[in-house]
């Protein structure tokens, strides 16, 4: 696909892997290059990805065949209204260094999406203006969508709001 070829040609080693599944484009990007790739995707006229549709993460800790690899994958879903095409970008990070550069400067919506990923997976976003929990309360201990969070763990009830 032209989009993936163009990305590989322009960014070289920063593009770790690409996949084209029946027109469903995916590129795995090295962490250091991700902000550059995202900015290029947004600003290049031929790509014009104005919308960050979604930003989420996946925990591969217990995924068959990937137990030894990097534990988390942060996933960006981009969409272009002008050109009506989509692109998925992935960044792999290890558990002991789970942090990714923040995309808030590129798309303001990334603010809450990154806070949700921090809340649920404990992946930090460097340069985020206000990285607090989004959905859970401040006193919550742990990150519940990690695969090693016990499904039966109950946290103590928090007191009345003051």
């Amino acid at each position, binding site marked *: 696909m032209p989009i993936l070829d163009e990305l590989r040609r322009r960014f070289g080693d920063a593009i770790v892997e690409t996949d084209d599944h029946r027109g469903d484009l995916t590129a795995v990007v090295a962490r250091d290059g991700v902000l550059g790739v995202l900015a290029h995707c947004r600003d290049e006229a031929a790509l014009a990805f104005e919308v960050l549709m979604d930003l989420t993460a996946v925990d591969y800790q217990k995924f068959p065949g990937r137990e030894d690899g990097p534990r988390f994958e942060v996933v960006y879903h981009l969409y272009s209204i002008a050109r009506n095409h989509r692109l998925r970008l992935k960044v792999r990070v290890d558990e002991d260094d789970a942090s990714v550069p923040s995309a808030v400067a590129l798309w303001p919506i990334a603010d809450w999406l990154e806070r949700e990923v921090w809340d649920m997976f404990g992946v930090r976003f460097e340069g985020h203006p206000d990285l607090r929990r989004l*959905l*859970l*309360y401040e006193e*919550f201990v742990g990150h*519940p969508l990690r695969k090693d*969070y016990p*499904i*039966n*763990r*109950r*946290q103590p*009830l*928090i*007191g*009345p*709001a003051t």
Partner: protein
Amino acid sequence: MGVGGFFTSKLDEAIGWARKYSIFQYPFVTACCGMEYMATACSHYDIDRFGAGLPRFSPRQADVLFVVGTISHKMAPVLKRIYDQMTEPKWVVAFGVCTCTGGFYANYATVQGIDTIIPVDVYIPGCPPRPESVIDGLMKLQDKITAQVQRY
């Protein structure tokens, strides 16, 4: 039982009878059970027949707290505060399995039954409960109100 006891028990009955037909509910609606609550409240099932036709959206003017829908841990302090703001006498109805036990939301985010936070008088199970179950629960609440011994 002396003459005084006779009068207070008759007074209890009279107060209970009056109270059970003037239920002002506070619908604390957070989730899909709210649809079934609306169906019950509207003309087809018509809870006005039981004197419960007027929901009050201020806890200070309500007697019965209808907790309708899933309560998350983040919502729990709000529910507790609403309950504390209601004046005596007050009753609580747990509407739907999520409020009764947490339902199928056996997870990190959901309160496993609102009776871990506030006392509950009537549990109406169902996901969501049919209006008939709601009316049954309401009538059980009325029985409870009638039988209640007043503190003078």
